Structure formats: structure tokens, C-alpha cells
């Protein structure tokens, strides 16, 4: 667990250091051990008890049997406890005292009980075996819980991502505002109603299946972005200027869906909408070094030092996470701008990045 160094605790056969909280245990181990497992362990212990008694009991077998039964029962209880909680306090304490107990048991055998040497030795071996079993169980279960918790965290993150994506994709505010414009134009028999409907329809058709796939070609993404900008331009009029400059060869680039769209929505939402002057939103894709540059820039309201809003941070954090999932550490996202200076988001995707993913 300790990175590159030697794990002395493991080497010295000490129980794992970390102990789990009750909630963590409940999460990682929701159920008691299965009946089969319990039965298998019980049978093994029973066989060992009987075998040891038969092999080393001789005339003292009732004493040995009782002692071994007690030891077996203790071990069974300990294993069960460790299965439920690898850091069980009683088991740990007994384990720390293990060598002492073994000595006591053996000494008890040779001394007051006056057992023969090999019978006492059998008792010692059985005690050591029991202690060893507990140690294995503690280490194994500890690892299991750690990995299970990591796995569950990963799963929760994936679920959370899906939820956020779904939320990002619906954008009720955008939809209803667009519908408000459309409704008015239809009622007034304005000629702009039809193109607006077409653009909105195209946007919805492009975005709804967008999020089903893990990757999609940039050409599809750009089509959705263009539709979105078309709708916004119709709504905002001359307040929104658009420049789209996509390198032909970049259109085949495969990217996580919604990547550019989220950034474009951010640019409109936080760059254009709050600005009193017309703002240009610029979308670019071109070769840069050994990879591709995707860029969304606006010359609008710009980044604010302490942004109280939830949405921009969320959108950006999402985008970062999705880049990481799709391309690993190779891809990067940088943000540039300041109050009144607009905002530029640059994504660099190296060639062959994440092809293994």
C-alpha cells in the first residue's frame, strides 16, 4: 500500500493498518458470508480437530479434543468476524497476543495437564495454524474491501457523470426560451418561424442520440454545434456573431460526444448573454503539432474571478473528466481569459491518444 517502499507491516505479518468505518463496511460487505462458505470453513476445522485428535491424542485424547474444539470454535468465530470487518478489534488483539497464547497453550499442555511432548506440539501447531489463518483472512479481506470500495466509487462516478450529462443535454431554459420565440413567430405568421423550427429540430435530432455513444466523429458534433448557434443567432440577432473554422481533415477525429457543444453553450451562456455589446463566438479545429487543437473562444463578458454560478464550473469540470476518460492524460484543456477579455478554451488531443481505450 505504501507506494514504492517496502511494506514493513506486511513483512512483519502485522495486521493491515487501516481500519474501515462502519459505513464503508456496510457498503463493501452488504451481506454475511454465504452458507456454503461458512459450512466449508466449519468442515475444515472439524476435520483438522478430528485428525489432530486421532493422530496425536493417544490416552489424552479427550483433553486434546476439548482444547482443539475450543481453539477451532475460536478460530471460526475470528474468521467470521474478520470476514465482516477485516479490522475487528478483538481479532486484532488476539492476533497481537498470538505467540503468547500459543506459548501458554503449549505450556499448559506440557505443564499442568502433563501431556506428552508430541501432543503438546500438536496443540502448538494447531494454535499457530489458527493464528496464520486469521492473518491471511485479515490481509485478504482488507484488500478485498479496499478494492471493492474503489470499484464502487468508480461506479458511482460513472452514474453521476451519466446523470450530469443527461441534465446538461436537456437544457430546459434553452428549449423553452427557443419555444417562446418560435411560438410568437408562428402566432405572428413571421417568416422566421420555419427556419427557426428547422434549426431547433435539427439541434434536437443531433443532440438526443449524441450522448448514447462513447465517441463520435467531429463532423457530427460540429453539425450539432452549428444548429445550436443557428437557433441562438435567430434569438439574439446581431448580439451573436459566429465564426466556424474547421479543418477538413479534422472532421474524422473521434471525440467524446457533446465536448464542443458544451463549450459552445458555455460561451453563449456566459460570454454572449451577459454582454451588452455584440460578441463573436469562434469555433476552430486544426492541426497543431502532433495532434489536434479544438478551440472555442468568445470576446464577451469573460471569466469572472469568483463565479458564484454553478453551471460554468460544472460544464468545464465535466468536459475535463470526459477528456480524461476518453484520451487519458495525453489530452489537455486550458482556459484563458479575464473580466472583460472574453474566454478561450483550448483542447489539445495528440494523435493516437486513447486509441487503447
Amino acid at each position, binding site marked *: 500500500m505504501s507506494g514504492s517502499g517496502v511494506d514493513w507491516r506486511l513483512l512483519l505479518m502485522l495486521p493491515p493498518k487501516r481500519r474501515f468505518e462502519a459505513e464503508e463496511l456496510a457498503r463493501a460487505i452488504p451481506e454475511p458470508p454465504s452458507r456454503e462458505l461458512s459450512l466449508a470453513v466449519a468442515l475444515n476445522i472439524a476435520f483438522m480437530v478430528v485428525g489432530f485428535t486421532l493422530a496425536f491424542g493417544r490416552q489424552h485424547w479427550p483433553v486434546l479434543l476439548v482444547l482443539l474444539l475450543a481453539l477451532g470454535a475460536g478460530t471460526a468465530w475470528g474468521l467470521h468476524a474478520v470476514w465482516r470487518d477485516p479490522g475487528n478489534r478483538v481479532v486484532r488483539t488476539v492476533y497481537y497476543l498470538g505467540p503468547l497464547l500459543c506459548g501458554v497453550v503449549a505450556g499448559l499442555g506440557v505443564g499442568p495437564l502433563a501431556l506428552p511432548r508430541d501432543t503438546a506440539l500438536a496443540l502448538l501447531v494447531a494454535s499457530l495454524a489458527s493464528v496464520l489463518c486469521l492473518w491471511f483472512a485479515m490481509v485478504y479481506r482488507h484488500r478485498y474491501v479496499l478494492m471493492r470500495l474503489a470499484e464502487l466509487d468508480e461506479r458511482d462516478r460513472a452514474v453521476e457523470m451519466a446523470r450530469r450529462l443527461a441534465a446538461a443535454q436537456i437544457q*430546459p*431554459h434553452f428549449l423553452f426560451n427557443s419555444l417562446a*420565440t418560435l411560438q*410568437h413567430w408562428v402566432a405572428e405568421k413571421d417568416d422566421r418561424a420555419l427556419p427557426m423550427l428547422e434549426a431547433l429540430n435539427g439541434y434536437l435530432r443531433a443532440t438526443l442520440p449524441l450522448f448514447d455513444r462513447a465517441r463520435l466523429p467531429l463532423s457530427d458534433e460540429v453539425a450539432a454545434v452549428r444548429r445550436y448557434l443557428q437557433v441562438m443567432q435567430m434569438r439574439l440577432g446581431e448580439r451573436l456573431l459566429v465564426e466556424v473554422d474547421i479543418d477538413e481533415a479534422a472532421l474524422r477525429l473521434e471525440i467524446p460526444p457533446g465536448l464542443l457543444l458544451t463549450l459552445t453553450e458555455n460561451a453563449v451562456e456566459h460570454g454572449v448573454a451577459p454582454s451588452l455589446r455584440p460578441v463573436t463566438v469562434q469555433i476552430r479545429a486544426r492541426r497543431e503539432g502532433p495532434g489536434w487543437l479544438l478551440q472555442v473562444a468568445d470576446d464577451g463578458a469573460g471569466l469572472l474571478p469568483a463565479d458564484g454560478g454553478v453551471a460554468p464550473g460544472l460544464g468545464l469540470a465535466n468536459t475535463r473528466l470526459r477528456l480524461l476518460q476518453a484520451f487519458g492524460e495525453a489530452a489537455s484543456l486550458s482556459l484563458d481569459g479575464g473580466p472583460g477579455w472574453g474566454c478561450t478554451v483550448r483542447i489539445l488531443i495528440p494523435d493516437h491518444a486513447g486509441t487503447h481505450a
Partner: protein
Amino acid sequence: MITTGLIADDEEAPRAQLLAALSRVWPELRVDAVCTHGVDAWDAFLEFDPQVCFLDIRMPGMSGIEVARRIQGRSQVVFVTAHGDHALAAFDAGAVDYVLKPVDDARLGQAVERVRLRLQQPAGPATGELQQLLEQLAAQARRPPQLEVIQAGVGREVRLIRVEDVIFFESDARYTRVVHRSDGQDGEALIRTPLKELLTQLDPQRFWQVHRSVIVAQRHVASAVRVDDGNMHLVLRGRPERLPVSRHFQGLFRPQ
């Protein structure tokens, strides 16, 4: 009886739609000002003093919430917003009047009915509560960056005036006059930025709007003098000007 109104929405179609719907639902309403953003709306409020304001929430310059906060209950406010606005939950809890876009006549009619009832009984109830809610919502919102330096063209040079040096701003027909005292020396400059836009970029604690066309640095005010029933003016420290305080802002100056 005619009621005067103001509407503000930064998008053309919803604005026109609201206007059309209001003319059907409330024919007695005379809309004096149709504004395209929050800065405009606040300025128009000061100019026309409407009895009721229909405000979009997300607007450039100043949000509908911010405009309503400044109105301070001196006019009935109905918010007009689309689904998905963060403020909606707070509105429901605080019994604020709002209609959703696209606006439908029936829902707008209900809001109008409530406003009319309240207009009949001038002592508006729960204004304090509403104001508190608006203060809260406004505090959560993004604030435009604060201005630190004003760049004013004077002849061939561009003079950089620190905002903290400014004594007052006064809007002229086409310019904004900036009167400042830098390094003990009084000076004046004209800038093109309208006063109503400057307002959102100044610290409201230090710079007080006292008139539709005047913003004054509070620390340079020596006294406020009531001239007669409706009029008040400000005496400045070391300046001869007397700045008018319009009725809306006279509440700022009260003995403690």
C-alpha cells in the same frame, strides 16, 4: 383607470409576445418603456416611474433580480422567465409573482389579477420579505467585474483616472462627466460609457446613485439638504456643485 408599466427582456420575440399578450389580458395597461436589458430597465424605471414592471431574469448588464432589488417595492414586479431558472424554487417559496415563457394568456391573466389587487391597496404586504429574498438571490448571482481605472480621452492623451479618485459621475446628453480629485488636484473628463452602464461596475457601498443621471462617491458627500417638500440636494466636500437627489434615493440620507 390607466396603469403604467415597464417590460424588459433581452430577446426580441419574447418581448413582443409579452407585449401582445399584455394588450389582450390587460388593455388598461399603458406600457411606457420596453427595455432590452437590465441596465436599460433600471434607467427607464427611474425615468418613467411605472406602477408595474415585467422583468426577464437573465438579462445582460443587470439581471431582473438585481433590477427588482433596486426597485425596492416601489413598483409591482412580475418576473417573466423560462423553465429551468435557478430562482424559480425560491420564487415558489417566497410567493413572488412570475410567469413562464412561452407566456400563455391564462397564466398571465392570473398574475395580472394579483397585481391589480395589490395596486388597489397601496400598503403592499410582505414587501420586506420579498426584498430579503431578492437580496439573497442577487448576492448569489454573478457580479460584473468592478472597474478600477477609467480611461478618458482628453485631447490627444488618454488619461487614466483611478475609480477611487472619482468624486461624482454625471450623465450629459451624450457623454458621462467624470469629476475627480487625483493627487489633491481637481479635474474633469468626459467618457462615452453611459452612466447606467457604469453603475453596474462600481462598488455600491462606495458609489451611490442619487439621481437617474448622478452617481456620487459617498465619502465626498458633506451633507444632504432638504430644499422643500420633494427636493433634496447634496453638498460636496471641497466642490461648489450641488447635486440633486431624486425622490427614489432620498431614503439613503436619514439621520441615525
